[in-house]
């Protein structure tokens, strides 16, 4: 498989909300390409007569009854939050698009 382009790496990084330096982009282009090449081996398997499947488990319809139970105490819920305020998780401001 051809090596990933810097643009492709940049796109993937943006989807994951990661800021990469030029060096990192170059390094990940190689690393990610190597991973893709490895996964590429799967293409060699003949799947012509295999029904597409999403799960190999024999399980179907694993559902629970609709019953509400108390969850975490708010202090516990927020215990590992990097920042919190008035019971909220606090994160960097996010707004999509330019208003």
């Amino acid at each position: 498989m051809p090596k990933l382009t810097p643009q492709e790496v940049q796109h993937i990084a943006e989807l994951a909300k990661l800021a990469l330096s030029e060096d990192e982009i170059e390094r990940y282009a190689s690393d990610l390409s190597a991973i893709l090449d490895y996964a590429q081996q799967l293409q060699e398997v003949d799947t012509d007569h295999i029904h597409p499947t999403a799960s190999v488990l024999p399980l179907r319809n694993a559902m629970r009854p609709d019953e509400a139970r108390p969850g975490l105490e708010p202090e516990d819920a927020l215990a590992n939050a990097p920042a919190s305020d008035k019971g909220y998780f606090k994160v960097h401001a996010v707004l999509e698009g330019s208003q």
Partner: protein
Amino acid sequence: MFSSHLSPFTQYEVVIGLEVHAELITKSKMFCSCSADFFGAAPNTHVCPVCLAMPGALPVINKEAVAQTIRAGLALNCTIAEDVRFERKNYTYPDLPKGYQITQYELPQAVNGWLDIDTPDGVKRISITRAHLEEDTGKLVHENGASLVDYNRAGVPLLEIVSEPDMRSIDEVNEYLTRLRQILIYIGASTGDLEKGAMRMEANISLRPAGSEALGVKVEVKNLNSFRAVRNAIAYEIARQERILRAGGQVEQVTMGWLEAEGRTYVQRSKEDAHDYRYFPEPDLPPLRIERAWVAELAASLPELPHARRQRFVAQYGLSPKDADVLTAERPTADYFDALVAAVGEDMPAKKVANWVMGDLFRLVNDNGLPISDIPVTPEKFAGLLKLVAARTINANTASQVLKTMFKTGEGAQTIVQREGLAQVSDAAALETLVDRLLAEHPDEVARYRAGKVQLFGWFVGQVMRETRGKANPGVVQKLLKDRLNS
């Protein structure tokens, strides 16, 4: 696609499709047992390791949410899929703790349905592409350069209903949304409470020259939280796109947001930064195999739907389509009316019963702010009153007064009529004496009437009604007066 050779006289046709998200009525969330009744709760008080996406926590499907989705799919005339599975829709945003939303993508629960709407040209069928189940996101509050996140709503079951681009006007959109909301409320799938965010809309809007079959470039407008916002945003987009096309420009394929306060759309993202959601099957959830017996059971649990009920009210009760629409708009009202007509029986035509309900009863219900299912005047009690009217024991005016008292005290009509001596005087002999006395007391008016001032007739009727405190049978009074005055 649209180029500048179009003349300034080109008429454009608008093409609209809608995506509606409705929160389902369940006790617990979609994949965990946190209470789904989060409205007004303090932030992050309805959360657990699953809906906070703590490592190792595993989702389990809420059966009731699946049942509600199937019921909604059936009510929207969809095919209910046998093989259904959940997938991960990947994107990074703080309202989504896992970094993905669990939704149905390739194998949705319900497909290929339709919803009939009324238009000035008759009934129009709007195709429904799919109705699927997913989880709601958390809520963000933007404050002082930071975003505050509340995950109480994260993981609440959400039904998404996607229409084909079949609507051609804002009126059709409004009618579609109204009917859709009515159905979801009727079947108990959603509260439809827009003020509490239980329904949120997105609209796809494009223009094309009238008569053209090809679709224009569409713009998607998100975060529309009221029907008014939908109407305003579409009107704004139609005008904006038409301006661009008339100037010989091209509409850009973008996703927009709606700023309700400013009354305008704004670009959220262009085609180039379109999200790449990288869907894949959710490995933590085994697929569903929807048994046909269960679907049949759920179909049997559906109530009579608004459209069918409207038609029945016209056919069975002889109501006008407009009155049938008013009386079936909400299920409790329609239930009340059905029970009332049954209790009144043959004594009064249903059309007349409808007038009583839409007039006096609706006024009292509105003034008291009670749901019709909780009012003290039960259908049986109201029927008792209407039977007294039908039997001419009391006249219409008296009945209005008695109904007010019934509303206050919860008493039966008969009790009030007897206690207050309101029974109508139909006894011709008694009324005759009264009429004769009145005519003797007012010789001038009698003379003027006989000289041609016929308008005085109403005045004489009024005098008799006053003397009997409104209890006189108006028919008998009029006949007596005519006999006497014209002889």
